[in-house]
């Protein structure tokens, strides 16, 4: 069924509501692909972004993993960055002044090795007015401790989310790992523990072997696979999760064009994030936003909620 376009070409309402707060539009940049918001200055219109999801932040400075940290695969990219980040001290000193100047909402991606780590970062970040919300990173596949371990067991995830929830008065988004048997279980655990939204999916565990030297390209063996290669997995996850929970679902994984974003929205996402494709086409989020707007206008949808989760 296609709605009749409204006469006079009314501008569709692009706003997205999460926990009573508003994002100006549904198109954000995924954590780990957009630094802390300043790196792409001059190459993209940051003002048009629905949100910047920052690089993961841990209490302590982390140098990251030994190189090589990247491997390219068909329509995909394996990364093993290892949560390289400036830590709370560096974040407060160097990144918060940048975030204050960004003309779009900033959602800080919070990570750690222990529950105490997550709580420490949440407590600090929650006090920063310029931060719109928190995205809990329980799905990083590239570290020895914490990371994905918090995101694959629903009970552990629920316990961590509740604890963070108590310290977080901003919108709390839990980023789900696809490296589980049933992603709806972890999604439900996050919702029951008080998450305001879930984002899915983080990277899939992947590996590339250097056949000439007979060893994995990434020194740790496996890394996180992103890019168009994982898009069908992400769309399926969003479809399943959006039917299992009643909180908003933010879709990501392999979005590299307008139709990709529409797939996610139609499958149930209230918002989306563009990640790996931003590296190659920094202006893609703005192009996707305009594409969604055009689609809505042509199809006669007045707001995102009119058509997301269409089937």
């Amino acid at each position, binding site marked *: 069924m296609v709605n009749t376009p409204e006469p006079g070409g009314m501008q569709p309402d692009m706003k997205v509501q999460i926990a009573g707060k508003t994002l100006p539009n549904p198109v954000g940049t995924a954590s*780990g*692909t*957009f*630094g802390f918001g300043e*790196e*792409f200055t*001059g*190459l993209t219109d940051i003002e048009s972004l629905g949100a910047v999801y920052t*690089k993961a932040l841990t209490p302590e400075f982390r*140098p*990251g993993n*030994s*190189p*090589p*940290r*990247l*491997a*390219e695969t*068909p*329509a*995909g*990219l394996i*990364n093993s*960055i290892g949560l*390289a980040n400036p830590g709370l001290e560096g974040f407060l000193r160097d990144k918060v002044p940048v975030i204050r100047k960004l003309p779009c909402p900033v959602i800080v991606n919070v990570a750690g090795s222990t529950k105490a780590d997550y709580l420490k970062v949440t407590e600090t970040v929650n006090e920063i007015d310029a931060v719109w919300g928190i995205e809990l990173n329980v799905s990083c596949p590239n570290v020895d401790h914490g990371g994905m371990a918090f995101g694959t067991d629903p009970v552990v995830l629920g316990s961590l989310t509740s604890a963070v929830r108590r310290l977080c008065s901003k919108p709390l988004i839990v980023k789900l790992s696809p490296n589980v048997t049933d992603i709806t279980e972890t999604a439900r655990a996050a919702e029951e523990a008080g998450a305001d939204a879930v984002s899915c999916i983080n990277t899939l565990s992947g590996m590339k072997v250097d056949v000439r030297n007979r060893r994995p390209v990434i020194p740790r063996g496996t890394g996180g696979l992103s*890019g*168009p290669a994982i898009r069908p997995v992400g769309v399926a996850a969003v479809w399943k999760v959006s039917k299992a929970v009643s909180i908003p679902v933010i879709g990501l994984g392999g979005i*590299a*064009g307008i139709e990709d974003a529409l797939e996610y929205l139609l499958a149930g996402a209230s918002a989306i994030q563009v990640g*790996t*494709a*931003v*590296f*190659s*086409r*920094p*202006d893609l989020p703005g192009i996707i936003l305009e594409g969604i707007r055009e689609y809505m206008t042509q199809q006669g949808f007045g707001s995102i909620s009119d058509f997301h989760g269409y089937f």
Partner: protein
Amino acid sequence: MNQDGPRTRGVARIFEQRSVARGFREITLSYALGYQGPVNPRPGQFLTILPHRYPLTIMRRPFAYSGSTEKGFSFIYEIRGSNTSDLADLDDGTQVDWIGPLGSSFILPSPGSLPVLVAGGIGVGPLYYLARKIAEAGMKSLVVLGARNSELLPHLDWPENTELRICTDDGSAGIHGSVLKGLEDVDSRKFEHAEFFACGPRPMMAAVHRMAEKSDRRCQVSLEEMMACGVGACQGCAVQVSDSDDLSRPKFKRICVEGPVFNSREIVW
């Protein structure tokens, strides 16, 4: 190393491509009509281009500038995989999506010094550009060029006052041996005022670094690593650097922003 400066993203047209050795090509691109962006990339800086088979190939490809005019720029590439082989097949006039100039550049040699440029394989691109900038400054360079064999030796128009030493692994041209052999033969008194610039395979750069360190001369190297964003966001192109403050934990720098040109003493070889 020299850093910063504006960078831009644009669409350029292929002006011409030519083969410079077997499997090595130099491509020249023209800025788009009415282009208003930066036109002065420095030797050592690089650009990235969007592969034609994007998004099947998801990452941009980084290339060091081998030349620049107010009309456009060039880089030398090696046909190594499907994307560089696509690039070689593109007709003149084809549009290419590029971002540049990116990264740090070589600090030009100080007056009175002898610039020694050591290039291995595809590492010749940025040094070819550097040699011409050095010549423009009225200085003479010693260029030591290494290749596996004579067919792989790039044919380039080096500035007139360049002393060129060719080295091939199989002895099919020039000195029989690596660039290090080529350097050994140089009168050691010359090195008293040398400043080294190296780009090529990592073991080669490490060896040039050690040679420079031994004679207490400055050595700048241009590094390469897999790169996703090219602007410092993803931290994928890390290189381990020495950190005198704390030797117990590794410290990394991003090749795309703090590099690709580093003082060789910074790098953990």
